[in-house]
């Protein structure tokens, strides 16, 4: 073992493998600038803290239960609603609507993004109207949607679709346009067909952006239920919440919010999980 005593040593402060059975492992330990290693279940910390805060604020009376019911009330309410089947039924119906809307929204958004991302003509025709669409408040469109598509399921799924396709389009379009020109040149020189180009370069290259769009889309689909399920519906979690609001059933409203929160966390988590698997080729700060 040799060391240069002439050289300052603070940055080389070595650390030893704590298990002495292992061979020595002493490494230069420069400051690490990234966020470090991912830790399992750490994501639970924030939501748990929130829950704790809510519980404490309720228990100490800081939070008026008429505005925000106590956690235990909400749990009790959930118990009741699950016991009489209402929660599951409403969730199932809502999930179906959200799922359908999500599916169509993804298809429409991705196709439009490809059309508009890969040709200037497509962009000229598609991009402006999409920007206008997303600038117009969704509520204001409802009379038109009722007029054109009635008040049945079609209209509900369509409204969700209209909300969902926007982030998918925007993200996919931006990601696609952000593909490094070097790969486009490569595709040209290996003689990729247009379809091959899309399949081998554009889609995988735009995938990170698409996934981010998907994260907006899944929560967007759930959230839009609040609006669409006010229209000619007697079921669904959005309807359940709306009804509770008109009758001031704070406990059900807050239960609804909790369900939304859990659904949001879950769907986002699922998308991020798939994303990590699908993008395992990335070597980024995310680690």
């Amino acid at each position, binding site marked *: 073992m040799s060391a240069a005593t002439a050289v300052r040593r603070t940055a080389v402060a070595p650390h030893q493998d704590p298990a002495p059975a292992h061979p020595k492992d002493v*490494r230069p330990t420069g400051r690490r600038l990234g966020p470090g290693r991912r830790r399992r279940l750490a994501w639970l910390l924030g939501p748990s803290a929130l829950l704790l805060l809510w519980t404490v604020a309720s228990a100490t009376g800081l939070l008026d239960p008429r505005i925000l019911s106590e956690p235990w009330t909400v749990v009790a309410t959930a118990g009741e609603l699950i016991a009489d089947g209402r929660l599951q039924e409403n969730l199932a119906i809502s999930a179906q609507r959200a799922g359908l809307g999500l599916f169509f929204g993804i298809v429409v958004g991705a196709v439009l993004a490809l059309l508009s991302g890969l040709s200037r003509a497509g962009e000229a025709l598609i991009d402006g109207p999409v920007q206008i669409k997303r600038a117009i408040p969704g509520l204001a469109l409802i009379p038109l949607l009722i007029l054109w598509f009635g008040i049945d399921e079609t209209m509900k799924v369509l409204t969700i679709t209209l909300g969902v396709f926007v982030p998918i389009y925007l993200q996919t379009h931006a990601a696609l346009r952000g593909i490094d020109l070097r790969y486009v040149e490569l595709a040209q020189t290996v003689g990729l067909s247009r379809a091959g180009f899309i399949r081998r370069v554009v889609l995988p290259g735009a995938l990170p952006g698409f996934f981010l769009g998907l994260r907006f889309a899944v929560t967007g689909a759930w959230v839009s239920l609040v609006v669409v399920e006010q229209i000619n519906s007697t079921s669904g979690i959005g309807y359940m919440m709306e009804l509770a609001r008109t009758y001031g059933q704070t406990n059900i409203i807050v239960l609804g919010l909790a369900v939304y929160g859990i659904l949001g966390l879950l769907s986002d988590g699922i998308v991020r999980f798939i994303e990590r698997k699908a993008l395992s080729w990335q070597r980024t700060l995310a680690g």
Partner: protein
Amino acid sequence: MAAHFGGLTAVGSSPGTTPRTLREAPTVSAVSVRGLIRGFGPKGVLNGVDLDIAPGEFVALLGPSGCGKSTLLRALAGLDHDVKGSGVISVPDRVSVVFQDSRLLPWDSVLGNVTLGLRDHDADAKARKALAEVGLAGREKAWPHELSGGEQQRVALARSLVREPQLLLADEPFGALDALTRIKMHGLLRDLVAAHRPAVLLVTHDVDEAIALADRIVVLDSGRVATVRKVAPEIGTAVDAAGHEALRRNLLTALGVDVAASSH
């Protein structure tokens, strides 16, 4: 792997006290590597590398493609937190790295890339001077993507020249340069070494370059140091020196080249 967690790095090494593993060491060296093992997945890449570099010493590292040269450099630079392995590494405080890819920040100008991390008042002036030395005066404001491959490599070189590292780790820093430019860059590197006497570990594929620059040449093979050759000063500076061709053939043989049969 647990040993890499941030929280554990403080064990036995509060700033100011010399860590135990270093106090044992009797000889003075800038870099000391003992029993270095690194691997990706099942296959090992480095299978017990031992290497010392004295302050001011210039070591060239040769070895076939994929033998682990970059892996060794990254280990010395402390960039392999997530790579499995063991061994004892000690390196000086200020380490500067020239990566195998020139690794310029695409969103920063050439000048910005050179001054990156410099804390001197006259960082800009220094960087301009270094850029002029590598033949890129007037390109300070260019984006990296506006440079040719060799120009990018020279910016990366300039970035390492403006620093005063105690250890310079350079991974094929001249690979994309033509003969003349390469000779000029050799000169610059020699000047830097003469001025600040850093320890240098230079990866190269050019045996002649290794002989021309290094005090010692190390050949890596099968994850170990296979060959070590001192380069006598008179051999390094003149092609016609007696030992030059012998050393060259010797090294090429160590690299597996059948010298007699090959046309270089």
